[in-house]
């Protein structure tokens, strides 16, 4: 008896300062992805709606953070109920958690796990916003975000990652969020745009990106932050798996960027900046579910396949006529599906778990499980998101008026414009240092 107790005590994890520090840094890296995404999206829209695009991502940091602390963490990671949802009253308001209390089976505090997972909850609804560029009332978007994380993200995160969640128990591998984050957001984007419709002038007016340097800045920040997203998802790095994840993240992203660029050089004649940024993001998305299960060579294959398929997929919106403004479906849904399914082919059975994919002698079993995970999350998110959008559209209205959309959503919804072009008349010939003319804008003074 005594020896059994001694063994138990020795096996119980103790707080690791290294892992705790590592995970806090990873959490901060994942946080940076949301402003990175804001720039990635913000540069891709026209000048007149660039602030709105930035805000649709940025607001998620506000609203989802608060909801996560109030009840989101409890719903996603509380004690399982019926394999569908969690609950733990100690997690409500993060009020019943001791500062040294460890996350179940790991060497990091619950607080650290909660804040790391919070960053995933923040970026997921922000991803959806890229499909809705230029046309959604900001208030409706805020409400949608709050409802969507409650009804879709928190439950799906529980299914995929929560102990007792049905996809988790089934053995679906989603290392860092290919299913819970990317397929979830991509399917939601499709659901919402089917309800709200196209931008005014879609396929007729030119809708060129207004700043590709901003897009590149955003893609770079996403890539950087993604190391926290993926390498942190092992919740510590005592055994080196986090490092494998880091390597695979870099490798797959590089391969996807090259594949996308190669495709568009052959297909359209140029290596474009937008193609490089988009290919990189497609690779990041695809390696997210599989990065802990594949080898670096497998990661090259995953990235290259995803880069190619996503580059081909972004053209589908013109063919089918749905207006996924910034290709959330083409990049995140397709990339997430490709990455999740490829786990079933490329899992080596030696890194994250002993599950091997088809190419490593594992048969079709894991591929089947991955397909169930992909389909379940895709279907639930698509239907639930479309219903939420429909509900909001019928009550408060989802879209700004056509006149406002043409004038520019920045002015209408935010009372701001991104850039001051009032001095453009001087142009190349002069550089004025004069103080701004008071007549440029009449300022209302609050007494």
């Amino acid at each position: 008896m005594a020896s059994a107790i001694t063994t138990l005590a020795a096996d119980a994890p103790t707080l690791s300062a290294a892992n705790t520090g590592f995970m806090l840094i990873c959490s901060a890296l994942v946080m940076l992805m949301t402003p990175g995404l804001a720039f990635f999206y913000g540069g891709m829209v026209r000048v007149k709606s660039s602030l709105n695009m930035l805000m649709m991502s940025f607001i998620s940091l506000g609203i989802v953070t608060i909801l996560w602390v109030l009840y989101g963490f409890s719903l996603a990671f509380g004690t399982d109920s019926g394999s569908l949802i969690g609950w733990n009253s100690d997690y409500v308001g993060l009020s019943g958690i001791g500062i040294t209390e460890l996350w179940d089976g790991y060497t990091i505090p619950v607080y650290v796990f909660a804040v790391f997972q919070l960053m995933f909850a923040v970026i997921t609804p922000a991803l959806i916003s890229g499909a809705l560029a230029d046309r959604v009332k900001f208030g409706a978007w805020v409400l949608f975000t709050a409802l969507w994380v409650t009804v879709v993200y928190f439950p799906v995160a529980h299914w995929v990652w929560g102990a007792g969640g049905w996809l988790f128990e089934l053995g679906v591998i989603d290392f860092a969020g290919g299913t819970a984050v990317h397929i979830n957001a991509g399917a939601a984007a499709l659901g919402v745009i089917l309800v709200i419709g196209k931008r005014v002038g879609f396929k007729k007016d030119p809708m060129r990106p207004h700043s590709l340097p901003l897009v590149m800045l955003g893609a770079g920040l996403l890539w950087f932050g993604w190391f926290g997203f993926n390498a942190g998802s092992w919740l510590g790095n005592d055994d080196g798996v986090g490092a494998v994840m880091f390597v695979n993240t870099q490798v797959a992203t590089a391969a996807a960027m090259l594949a996308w660029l190669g495709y568009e050089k052959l297909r359209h004649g140029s290596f474009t900046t937008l193609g490089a940024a988009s290919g990189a993001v497609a690779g990041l998305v695809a390696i997210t579910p599989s990065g802990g299960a594949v080898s670096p060579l497998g990661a090259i294959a995953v990235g290259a396949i995803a880069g190619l398929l996503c580059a081909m997929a972004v053209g589908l919106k013109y063919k089918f006529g749905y207006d996924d403004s910034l290709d959330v479906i083409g990049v995140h849904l397709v990339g997430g599906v490709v990455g999740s399914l490829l786990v079933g082919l490329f899992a080596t059975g030696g890194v994250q778990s002993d599950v091997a994919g088809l190419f490593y002698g594992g048969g079709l079993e894991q591929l089947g499980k991955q397909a169930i995970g992909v389909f379940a999350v895709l279907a639930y998110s698509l239907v639930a998101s479309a219903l939420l959008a429909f509900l909001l559209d019928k009550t408060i209205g989802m879209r700004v008026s056509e006149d406002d959309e043409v004038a520019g959503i920045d002015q209408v919804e935010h009372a701001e414009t991104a850039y001051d072009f009032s001095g453009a008349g001087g142009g190349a010939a002069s550089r004025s240092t004069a103080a701004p003319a008071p007549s440029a804008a009449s300022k209302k003074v609050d007494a």
Partner: protein
Amino acid sequence: MKLITAIVKPHKLDEIKEALQAFGVQGLTVTEASGYGRQRGHTEVYRGAEYQVDLVPKIRIEVLVDDSDAEELIRVIVSAAATGKIGDGKVWSVPVDSVVRVRTGERGADAL
């Protein structure tokens, strides 16, 4: 008197300005312009979506000169603006009936 108008590539502005100053021109007017000639702009591709960009940015330079200087000045502008590539622009002159310097009321050649 003649009004000489040149539509040229924006990056040629400084060279043309210097050539005009060397020639002795006292003043000029510059405006940003856009348009196309026989080359009809260019094509841009964003994620496979092709955009035909017809109007390309140009600079419009206007100078008022004496009749006797007009031909030589056109030559100076053309030589400063030329790159030999498509889209270099055009220069033309039109007769001007009268010119008045606003500050002094001087007219004609005195106002140049």
